[in-house]
């Protein structure tokens, strides 16, 4: 009955256009949907659009739930595709709603799917997602994969326990001489970790709410599940993190998705709705361990073979040339082959050229949000996690990967205490490097201190870096804004302030469970309290629609940046005796290059090949010519020398798994 009602409701919804829906309250997006409801919505969306959609069940979760991808544009043969995945960690229900909202939006106007195919995966971690609807909530992110976390005789025997019966797993604090935390002087609710270097001493030990169910002296060390799908993908995967599993793909949701995506080489872009936000903050760099291809050390045994000095460093181009001398004749040497042979390792930081478009789009996105009067003065999104889908899509598929967290708790507006003679962040942001340096060391030091700059930012050091041109005031302010603000003396951290204020305003203060004494079976007198799960990530359901309405359409904007490769123009020069010089200009009229820099490095994106067909003989050049890399809004010229005995028409075809087969007819001779 409920199912029937729901489909009826959906049907009603589907006949109204997005614009109208935006104007009215949207019945579909006024609540968070459970796994079963998500499945039902996907089925309905498919049934109502049977001609252009398809459902793919790509895996069954360890908990027995289907992992379902909705394909939109299944009627298109040769078209680039965009993959949209949401809520990989299972504890951000808003992102699942975002994916469903996006699917509906795409289906409401055929213009969105004229030349792009979409794959929408709203719920890749359904086992964990059940946690939001459970009677006791613990911000669950692991699936039902059976893991014996404590290696004892039982599995899942010591999970959390809702001791105070409030439906949330919060924290326990216990007075203890060897404690690690003390009560904040600024707010008795907040616990602060004691820093021995500052002469602080802990008074409390902290535990997650629960008892030692299996009596092994440890609390909550072996709860139900599992593997967190959101950190179980192969890039920067760590088997040392128990919740990632021991190899990437061990859990079927991940394995099934990896196969599904690699079976579809036309996927040219990926969106992830979750906790990071590459749309707003470009992916972070600065990880150690990346290979520097401009400074390669050659291990001594290979150095001997190549006849080079093992103590020196070489550039990639040089090593490629050296390698050519020792490989069998006819074997092609590529940089990625050299990198593999010498064991240079994986890329771990976003490549410079790619950061350019990430930065550009993030600036555009900020403008876009500003125009929509959307508050961006919120707590910063978290960086993408190791093993996450969004990092994997960029580093392993070599395609643009954008992510979005659809909600952040607003910051509490600080009153500006602008003293005379000091400069504000906003002022500095607009200054040139010279102007800033001209402020002098004292003023700069004052500015850094007033804005809580990290200790390594010294006035002297910054002036030097500005002078050398390595650092601009704008970059510096950008970095400072993205840094977590340390707790100032006599003041709560920015996060605590924001969360407590948010709890007051939108959760009737119940976003923080006040500390309350109970008697614990083994710990004695304890107090239970703390932030409740989902406070930070999940706004009240009546906010869902308005949040999605503003942010989700940006994904549509980004999809327009895809490269688009076509034959632009050709030139035939008659050299006499039936010999012709043929020049074909291939253009990319999209904004993004193909492939992006990471795609060039990993060689994963499918090649674009120009194929000549017709009654001709090719004297110089190939009948299948790989286009190679092409920048955004750029043209590349390919040249052949051909022989045609009589007047003829040949075809030049773009052969590509991504862009479809564009054909151009060319007349030769006559």
């Amino acid at each position: 009955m409920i199912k029937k009602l729901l489909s009826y409701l959906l049907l009603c919804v589907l006949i109204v256009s997005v614009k109208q829906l935006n104007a009215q309250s949207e019945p579909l997006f006024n609540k968070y949907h459970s796994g079963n409801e998500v499945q039902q919505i996907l089925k309905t969306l498919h049934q109502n659009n049977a001609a252009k959609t398809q459902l793919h069940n790509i895996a069954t979760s360890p908990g027995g739930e289907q992992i379902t991808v909705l394909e939109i544009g299944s009627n298109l043969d040769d078209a680039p595709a965009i993959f949209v995945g949401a809520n990989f960690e299972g504890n951000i229900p808003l992102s699942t709603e975002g994916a469903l909202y996006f699917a509906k939006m795409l289906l409401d106007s055929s213009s969105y799917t004229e030349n792009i195919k979409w794959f929408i995966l709203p719920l890749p971690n359904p086992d964990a997602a059940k946690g939001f609807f459970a009677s006791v909530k613990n911000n669950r992110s692991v699936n039902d994969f059976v893991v014996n976390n404590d290696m004892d005789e039982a599995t899942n025997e010591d999970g959390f326990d809702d001791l105070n019966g409030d439906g949330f797993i919060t924290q326990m604090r216990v007075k203890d001489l060897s404690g690690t935390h003390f009560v904040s002087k600024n707010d008795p609710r907040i616990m602060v970790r004691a820093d021995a270097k500052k002469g602080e001493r802990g008074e409390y030990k902290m535990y997650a709410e629960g008892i030692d169910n299996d009596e092994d002296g440890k609390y909550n060390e072996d709860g139900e599940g599992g593997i967190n799908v959101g950190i179980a993908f192969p890039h920067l995967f760590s088997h040392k993190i128990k919740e990632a599993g021991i190899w990437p793909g061990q859990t079927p949701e991940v394995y099934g998705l990896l196969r599904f995506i690699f079976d579809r080489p036309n996927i040219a872009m990926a969106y992830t709705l979750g906790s990071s936000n590459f749309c707003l903050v470009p992916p972070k760099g600065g990880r150690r361990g990346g290979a520097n291809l401009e400074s390669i050390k050659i291990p001594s045994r290979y150095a001997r073979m190549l006849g080079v000095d093992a103590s020196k460093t070489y550039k990639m181009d040089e090593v490629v040339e050296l390698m050519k001398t020792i490989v069998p004749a006819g074997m092609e040497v590529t940089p990625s082959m050299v990198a593999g042979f010498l064991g240079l390792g994986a890329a771990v930081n976003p490549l410079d050229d790619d950061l350019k478009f990430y930065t550009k789009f993030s600036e555009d996105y900020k403008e876009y949000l500003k125009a929509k009067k959307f508050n961006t003065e919120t707590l910063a999104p978290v960086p993408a996690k190791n093993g996450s889908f969004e990092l994997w899509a960029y580093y392993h598929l070599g395609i643009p990967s954008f992510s979005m967290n659809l909600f952040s708790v607003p910051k509490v507006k600080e009153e500006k205490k602008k003293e005379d003679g000091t400069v504000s962040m906003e002022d500095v942001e607009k200054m040139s490097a010279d102007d800033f340096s001209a402020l002098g060391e004292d003023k700069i030091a004052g500015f850094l201190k007033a804005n809580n700059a990290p200790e390594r930012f010294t006035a002297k050091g910054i002036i030097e870096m500005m002078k050398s041109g390595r650092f601009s005031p704008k970059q510096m302010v950008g970095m400072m804004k993205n840094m977590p603000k340390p707790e100032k003396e006599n003041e709560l951290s920015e996060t605590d302030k924001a969360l407590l204020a948010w709890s007051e305003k939108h959760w009737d203060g119940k976003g923080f469970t006040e500390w309350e004494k109970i008697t614990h079976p083994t710990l004695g007198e304890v107090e239970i309290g703390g932030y409740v799960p989902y406070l930070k990530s999940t706004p009240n359901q009546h906010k869902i629609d308005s949040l999605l309405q503003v942010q989700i359409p940006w994904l549509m904007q980004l999809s327009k940046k895809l490269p688009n490769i076509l034959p632009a123009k050709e030139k035939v020069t008659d050299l006499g005796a039936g010999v012709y010089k043929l020049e074909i200009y291939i253009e990319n009229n999209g904004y993004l290059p193909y492939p992006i820099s990471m795609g060039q490095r990993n060689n994963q994106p499918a090649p674009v090949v120009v194929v000549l067909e017709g009654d001709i003989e090719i004297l110089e050049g190939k009948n299948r010519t790989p286009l190679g890399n092409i920048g955004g809004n750029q043209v590349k010229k390919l040249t052949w020398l051909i022989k045609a005995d009589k007047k003829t028409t040949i075809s030049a075809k773009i052969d590509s798994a991504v862009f479809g087969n564009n054909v151009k007819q060319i007349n030769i001779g006559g």
Partner: protein
Amino acid sequence: MKKFIIFTLLFSLAIVGFSVEKGKIEVPLRFDRYYSYDEVNEALKVLNKAFPELTKLEVLGQSEEGRDIYALTINNPKTGDELSKPGVYVDGNIHGNEIQAGEVCLYYANMLLTKYGENEKVTKAVDKNSHYIIPVVNVDGRFHFFEDGNTPSSNRSIRVAKDDDGDGLFDEDAPDDLDGDGSICQMRIKDPFGRYKIDSEDKRILVPVKPGEKGEYSMLGYEGIDNDNDGRINEDAEGYLDPNRNWGFNWMPPYVQRGAGNFPLSGVGLKAIDDYISDRPNIIIGYAFHNTGGMWLRVPAEKSTGIAASDIAAYDVIGKEAEKITPGYVYKPAYDLYPTYGDFDSHLFFIHGIYSFVGELFMRSQETYTVKKEGPKEDELESFMRGTRTERSREQLKFNDNVAQGELYKDWKKFEHPVYGEIEIGGWVKMSSRLPHPFMLPDLVHRNASVVFLSALQTPEISIDVFEVKEIGKNLQQVRVRLQNAKGLPSMSAYSVSSKLYPQDMLTVSGGKVVAGGKISDKRLNKVNYKEKKPEIQFLSVPSYGVVEYQFLIEGKGEITFNYESQKAKNINTSVKL
């Protein structure tokens, strides 16, 4: 092109290479021959039929091309259930061309079964262990290696097409068996400007010309044509997906390591094998046989991953003997060769807690034709990379001529190539170089199977013993229990314990109330590390040739039972009356 092959087939009269014996397959199996993919399966079926009580034959999954992957289990059900005994896993031929690895597996099975009841040691190993034997992992590879023209080194990949040359086509330009003799040999062309000339002693050998010297030949690479007409020859053969770089532990993508495949265990047959191993948590030692070079390789496969000293010691128990059982083979960590990621052996050790070895079968230096061995050993990697032949080539050719009756080398013959014109085709045939001539095979399979056999005997044998009972108060007894391992492999690897790969071994006490209990750290000084909670369950592992001792303070009287439970070692118990 087809016409062309038919033409050459008709006119190539002298087919070089030893004939693959097609004799009847019966027990005991013969090992002076190589078995094709179908024949391996037939051999397994014959063994299964002859020893129905001791064997179980099953298909664990299918390959990319749909071929069955067989596993033979040898277990004596009369001495216990399969999963209750330490498991010995052995596979081979994960690289399609490394076929003698399959014969080692078949030999191991044949030896255990035919000597059971006759040889005391073999009988013991069959009764004590479960043996899991997968002779051919890369079933498509073995099939194509026999059926198609190949070099000794081609057809390693599993059959997942890859666009090696970036032209949008997949596997479209493999080498071609132009003369239809079943081997992909070398092509050379007469060329006054070439960089090679005929060797003064053996006219089959080309040697590089010295500076200023006149050349006679150019080398044109492996036999083949430009199938895709792109100006290159043989640049996009089958795959390449290296099935020994596609496993889950420490997997790295293909741009970091060629052949890795798109994602861990993307190979469907490999995934089926991983599932098969996951279902058998009793496996404690594993072998994967390859060719070539004469090596016993242990983990780790790259230097940034370390393993505990006690695990190295456990490896040494077998590795140091293995070197002697197979003269000339070297035992070393795999990273010593070159770093690899996502290799099968690391997956066994770091995911499944199995001590794992790679056996690199055969050394070409065993093809001798000389009165006395002297001089430094040839660096095989270096000579391979240079692609040159040294004086060793002359000796190898003599070996071919007078020991192998000319079956390993094809003399150079003229051939009309569609692009190059008149060329010559010749060189080492498919069944050479990395494969011993069948006359050497019995020795190879026996010695290598003996290493697997030795490690079966070294799997843990735990005994349990109550060695002291003392009354220490009213109704309170102090009981001491000893677990002893008579063999060289510990009951768990140190890595499994530290990384919590699976539940630890347990010693549980039942029948009385255990007031306190813990591991004895010094029994003479009476030092015990008491376990604070649940003292009646102790978690442990029993080291290589070692003992662990526990003390329990038990209240009350009656029959007390001590149970030792382990995933990999056999479960045992003992009782004492208080």
